[in-house]
């Protein structure tokens, strides 16, 4: 079936199979770099995108479901070509090493700050519980998020 959706501000179309996941279509069909395969079961978060503004595991979302919706990845966060605040904060705080978890991590960090402008440490760790990182030990990521908290 043919689906049409908005991806990082661009209108896209794709022919998808009934059982195709959004991840499969983004990565293997459309060549999107800003989602990564880590587990296929919604545990690691490397595949996370925003669907109509809400963070979702693209590996657990059917491609057919996003017909008519808006999908955003870390690549679509720039504002007038400049890095978004959350992206700058990650760079400044060295909140990435290998970079594989980063696109998903950035989106959840952004979604958290959009819902909660002043999260506690506990709220940050709870929000990020579905994003695994094997390199940084999480602390620089939490620091990057805290640096954007508005009191």
């Amino acid at each position, binding site marked *: 079936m043919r689906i049409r959706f908005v991806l990082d501000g661009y209108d896209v179309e794709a022919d998808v*199979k*009934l059982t195709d996941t959004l991840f499969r279509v983004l990565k293997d069909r459309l060549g999107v770099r800003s989602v990564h395969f880590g587990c296929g079961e*919604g545990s690691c*978060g490397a595949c996370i995108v925003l669907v109509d503004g809400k*963070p979702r*595991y693209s590996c657990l979302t059917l491609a057919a*479901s996003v017909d008519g919706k808006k999908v955003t990845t870390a690549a679509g966060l720039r504002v007038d070509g400049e890095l978004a605040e959350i992206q700058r904060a990650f760079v400044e705080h060295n909140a990435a090493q290998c970079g594989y978890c980063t696109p998903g991590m950035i989106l959840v960090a952004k979604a958290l700050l959009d819902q909660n402008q002043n999260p506690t440490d506990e709220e940050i760790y709870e*929000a990020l519980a*579905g994003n695994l990182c094997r390199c940084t030990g999480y602390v620089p990521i939490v620091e990057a998020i805290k640096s954007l908290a508005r009191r």
Partner: protein
Amino acid sequence: MSIEGDAGFYRPKKLSDAIRLKKILGDKTLVIAGGTLAVQLLNKYLVEPEAIISLEDLPISYVKVAGRRVEIGATTTVASLLKHRDLPQALAEAARSIHGLALREAATVGGNLMAPAPAGDLATALMALDAEVMLRGSRGARAVPLSKFYRGALQYNIRRDELIYAVRVRRVPGFSAFRKFTAYRYSGPTIASVAVGLDLDRRRIRRAAVSVGGLTTHPYRATAAERVLTGREPSRETFEDAAQRVADGVSITHGLYSEAYLRRLVSALFVRAVEKVMS
């Protein structure tokens, strides 16, 4: 009237259409709410459906609280639940314990009722609230007490043409709580969980419901512990007696941990759940 689908993918807008589809399309159909479990089966090549019914467009995402009566639509996500301030305490605590923003946006109440351990935190909490599963099929609607909903591992009291459309609590108890234990502080699957619902005053516990998750495929009611509590005074001694009985009569089928550990764990979780009432 035909229900439109595309290459086997259906997004019905009316519950009656969804039910009709489920009946017509038969066995090789996957019904998906949030997809947290169903789409995993696809990713691991464990199922090969010929049709998929997505429930996402059905008008069954709602939270209705009227006095002590609560009704929650089956496709209500954990994220939506958490926007409500007036949830029964046990349910609010269970919802808050499900961590990760992306999981909260996908996990649904209906899906959680059917999810096997280690998932099913909401089911555990709802069971201690004496919740009922609201089903609708081609022959009409019916309500099944959650404590009678599970016939066996992954076997439910649902007919072929029925869908869960809501879960209902007729009367929220005076006190309820939910405690769970995971391998890591903020993440990881539930190792065990305990939910408690009590109606009590200073002198007597009039009604008690205790449910346990994580030890068996689906949560169970700890009736031995409930018998200790009902009619007795709400003293520390009563609760500690009950704590010893929380895993009575249960054949533990789940968990990577020893039986002895799991039994002690659920006793400890029960005590934590009733801490406020004990003091």
